[in-house]
Structures are given as structure tokens and as C-alpha cells.
């Protein structure tokens, strides 16, 4: 069967935003060209500077920067801040918490959202649009609108001890997975249903002729066709959930259960006397997102683009 490849032509291609003007411009006036270049180069320098500056501080010994200031030529560069930040602050533990929250949350939200999007686009329920609006709007609310009751709710819902050693949704990894899943569902349902709408109806008619049930049409036909969108969403969600600060700050009381991003707030207090260590810890915490940035930037951008356009 070659349905996959033959179909892909009619599906929207998930692509990174690429300059659409490339190669087919009429001759731009040179001064405009130069002005654009100067502007973009200065912007790029300004955009990189804060990050490189923090990296530079992280690479320098504390004694040196206190003496000469951050803006000075290096007398020596060292990785010691990185090793110290890594070993003295429990960062491996916080990273593990991030993994325990991010990985299940991404898998679950994509699984659930695929199911919802499939039902909303392929089963005529009469309330399809209403449900789609419900999911989409939920994701657009500022988190702070729901946090007060959510916080009380988390203190009320008991969890078995293997899911939470606090015995509650509050202050548990499970609780964070649940809120990340619930909150991101709306966005994923919106993106995936737009994507699924573009799958030609004939595919489903053919599947029906072959006697495929609803589950088969979902799992064997739709999900594989949505692979590009799922990959883009997975990249986006991994970054977003890893970067989450608010849920972890509000729905967790003990610092040792927090994921890396929110643990940075505690580290800042812990290392208050040695800013170079904070810089190093921040750079370490940025590593996963930088890996995504370097390897999967196109996927990430594709996810954002899918979310902002219909179909």
C-alpha cells in the first residue's frame, strides 16, 4: 500500500516558516537592502547578547568577576561553576522531575487530543462545533483565572500513594501532569482537528468499503496521517511543559518535587551569594530547550504556524 505517500501531496505540508520571497524578488534598491541588513544585524546582536553574557559569566570564576566586574576580559575560564551548580543543588533531581512531568504529559495530551479531534471532525454529533469551541477557549484563558479554585480542588482530591506521596493532587507530580494535560488539550484539539479536516473524505469512504470500524479509521488511518502535525505538536508541547513555571510554583509546596524551571527560583535564593553559579545553573536548565532549538527548530515553528492558521 502506498496510500501514505500518495496522500501526502494533498495534505497540508508541515514546514518551517521559510522566506517566501527568496529567489523571486525584483531587484531591491541597494540602500533599502543595506538598511535592512544593518537593522537585522544590530537586532541579532541585541538578541544574542544577554544569553552570551550570562554564558560568559557562568564560565568565569566568582572571585574574578567580583574583582573586575562582569564586563572585563577573562583572566581564566572554567567549567567549575557548571559542575558545582550541577552537583551542589540537586539539579539532576529537578531534571528527573521535569522528565517525569513532561514525558507523560506530552504523550497523554497528544493521545487524548487525537481522539477528540477525530470524533469532532469525523463523527457527526451536532455539537461538534460547540465542543471544539469549548476546548479551544479553555486553552486561551489566563492560568490565573482558574488557579484559585484549582488550588482548592487539588487540596481536596485524594490520590493513592503510588501516584502521590502527599496523598493529594496537590504537591504531586501526577497533579502537575493532569493540569498540563488538561490545559494544553484545547490547543492540541484545535490544531489536530484543523489538520484532520484536510484529510480527503474519499479515504474514509474507501476505509468504510473495506469494513473498517470507527476505531480502525481512527487508529490505523487518521493517526498515521497526522504524524507531521503530531511531531510538530510534540516538539512544541515538550518545550512549553518543560518551561512551565506557574503551575509548578502554585500547585507544589515543596521545592524538591519541582521541575527544573520552577526550581530555578529556589536555586536563585540558594546561590544568592554566588551569581556565577546561578548563571551556570540557568545555562544548564536551558540545555534541553537548546537541544530542541538546534535539532527541531523547524518542527517547533511548524507547530506554532499550525496553531495560528486554519488547516
Amino acid at each position, binding site marked *: 500500500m502506498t496510500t501514505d505517500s500518495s496522500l501526502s501531496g494533498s495534505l497540508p505540508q508541515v514546514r518551517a*516558516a*521559510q*522566506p*517566501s*520571497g527568496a*529567489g*523571486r524578488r*525584483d531587484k*531591491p534598491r541597494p540602500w533599502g*537592502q543595506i538598511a535592512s*541588513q544593518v*537593522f*537585522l544585524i544590530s*537586532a*541579532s546582536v541585541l*538578541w544574542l547578547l*544577554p*544569553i552570551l*553574557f*550570562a554564558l560568559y*559569566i557562568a564560565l568565569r570564576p566568582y572571585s574574578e568577576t567580583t574583582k573586575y*566586574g*562582569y*564586563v572585563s576580559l577573562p583572566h581564566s575560564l572554567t567549567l567549575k561553576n557548571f559542575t558545582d551548580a550541577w552537583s551542589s543543588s540537586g539539579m539532576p533531581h529537578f531534571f528527573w522531575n521535569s522528565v517525569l512531568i513532561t514525558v507523560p504529559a506530552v504523550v497523554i495530551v497528544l493521545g487524548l487530543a487525537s*481522539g477528540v479531534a477525530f470524533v469532532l471532525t469525523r463523527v457527526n454529533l451536532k455539537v*461538534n*462545533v460547540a465542543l*471544539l*469551541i*469549548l476546548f479551544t*477557549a*479553555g486553552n*486561551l484563558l*489566563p492560568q*490565573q483565572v*482558574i*488557579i*484559585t*479554585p484549582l*488550588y482548592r480542588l487539588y487540596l481536596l482530591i485524594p490520590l493513592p500513594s503510588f501516584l502521590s506521596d502527599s496523598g493529594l493532587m496537590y504537591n504531586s507530580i501526577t497533579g502537575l501532569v493532569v493540569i498540563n*494535560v*488538561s490545559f494544553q488539550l484545547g490547543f492540541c484539539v484545535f490544531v489536530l482537528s484543523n489538520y484532520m479536516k484536510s484529510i480527503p473524505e474519499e479515504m474514509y469512504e474507501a476505509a468504510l468499503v473495506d469494513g473498517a*470500524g*470507527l*476505531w480502525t479509521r481512527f487508529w490505523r488511518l487518521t493517526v498515521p496521517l497526522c504524524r507531521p502535525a503530531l511531531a510538530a505538536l510534540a516538539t512544541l508541547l515538550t*518545550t512549553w511543559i518543560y*518551561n512551565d*513555571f*506557574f503551575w509548578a510554583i*502554585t500547585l507544589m509546596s515543596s521545592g524538591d518535587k519541582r521541575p527544573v524551571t*520552577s526550581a*530555578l527560583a529556589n536555586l*536563585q535564593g540558594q546561590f544568592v551569594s554566588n*551569581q556565577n553559579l546561578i548563571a551556570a545553573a*540557568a545555562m544548564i536548565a536551558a540545555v534541553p530547550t537548546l537541544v530542541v532549538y538546534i535539532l527541531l*527548530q523547524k518542527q517547533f*515553528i511548524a507547530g*506554532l504556524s499550525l496553531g*495560528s492558521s*486554519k488547516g
Partner: protein
Amino acid sequence: MVVGLLLGIPLLLDLAFVWFPALATVLLSFTKWNGVGDLHNKACLPNVPSILNNGCLYGIQNYHQAVTIYPEFWPAVRHNLIWLAVFILFATPLGMLFAVLIDRGIKGSRMYQSILFLPVMLSLALIGIIWEFVYSQNLGLINTVIGRNGNNNAIDWLGNPHLNLWAVLVEATWRQAGYVMVLYLAGLKAVDPTLREAAVVDGANAWQTFWRVIFPVMRPINVVIMVVTVIESLRAFDLVYITNKGINGLELLSVLVTSNIVGETQRVGFGSALGVVLLVISLVPICIFLFQTFRSESREGQS
């Protein structure tokens, strides 16, 4: 059945952990409750110790207190409005400008795009920490460069309540512009190239082509960006929280909501009332977005 299974669990999650709390915020905002003990449906009594009143119906008193005697409320509203204004006047146009220039395919556009987009990948908490080195009073980049890093005349960018909001807004703009750029690039890419060619044939210059031809056809993406701009400025929290926990010049509505539930004294009713203020404001961009997105859909449904 399969439909029930595929739809049921996610719907339940969305209702239980997003929509129920959103509704509950509205209901709780009319009560006076410290989170301990039960809520009841008796009106709060005047002139009794608050312990006896706990859980009572408070009418619109929370709102009344917020706008009259809560000292942080109006500063927070003002800061949120400034935040929104800076996003509308600076961050969004800057991101659009980046996108338009990059879309013209000038040399190095791929590299510029990657660099300008980098902050979007970083968490806001991390961005707050990174910029603390730029703003640091005695050792920081800015003060050293402008020669104000002495002990007497150092500028306290993040500590001075007249400056810190603007300093943080530079950080926020630094990230938001890249975000808008990516969204806008996706929109520009989808514009039919023949439109542009036709405009050029008609003798339009680049400026006219953009404002008269490209910008109008990008209405859907313009709405998305407007919605993102408003909602991101209402959600703003992480940057100010990591900088100084959102006090002393950095108050925002989102911070006030949070400090009334995770602080020492829990004022559930009052915090909810502040949440409702956020909810009401956010409903405006949300409705605009839903209207533009699903208008065509419901028409399709009817036909």
C-alpha cells in the same frame, strides 16, 4: 462505545480542571472564605470577628474592597495596561518588521530568523535570570557600559519602582517580538505570491504593497496576533515573579491573584474576585478569536 471513550475522558478533564475552576472563580468571588472550614449560604454579618464569618456570602464586597481599599489593585491594573501598550506599540510591530524583512529573502535571512527566535524557546523564568546580569547594579552590563556602576550613582534597574517595570518590559519585548515574528512569517508565507507580483506590475512600491495588498489579506493572522498579544499581557507573571515576586513596582493582576492563594493568608473569595477581573478582560480577545475562527464553520454546519 468508541466515541464515548475518545471524547469522554478528555472532555471530563477539560471540564473538571479548566471550566469548573473558571466557573467556580466567579461563584467564589461572592464569598468571604479563608479556605478552611465550609462554605455556607448565609450572608456575612457586619461587625463580627472574621472567623465567625468564614465561608459566608459576601455579595460584591470583594470587588468593592479591591477597587477602594486594596492598595495594589490600581497599580496592578495600570501595569497590566502598560504591559499591553508596550506589546501593542513595540513588541508586535517589531516582530512584524522582523518578519517582513526576513520574508523578503535578504541575505542571511535564515540566520536572522534563528537568532531572533531563540528567546521564544527559553522559559520566561530563565529569561528573567539571564537579564539580571545585564541589569545588575554594580557588575552588570548596562551600568558598566554607561559608567554608572559606582556605589553611589549605580542605577538599580530592577529595584527602583519607577524603572523596573520598563526594564522587565524590555525582557518581555525581547521574547515577544520573536514569537510574533514566527507567527507572522507563517502568515506571509501563505500569501498568494501572484498578489505581490500584480502589485509590483501596477507600480506599487514595497511600502504600498505591504499596507494595501499584503496586510489586508492577512486579516486572520492579524487577529491571531492581536489575541496572542492581549492574552500574553494578561498572563504575564513569570518574569516579574522571578525578578522580585511581583512587588515594589512590578505588581500585576496575575501576581495579586496568586499571592492571595499561595501566601500566608488565604483570601479565596478576594483572590477569586481578582481572577474574575482577569476573566472578564480576557473574554474580549477570546470571543473575537472564536468569532473569527468558527464563524465560517457554523455556516458550513448549517448548509
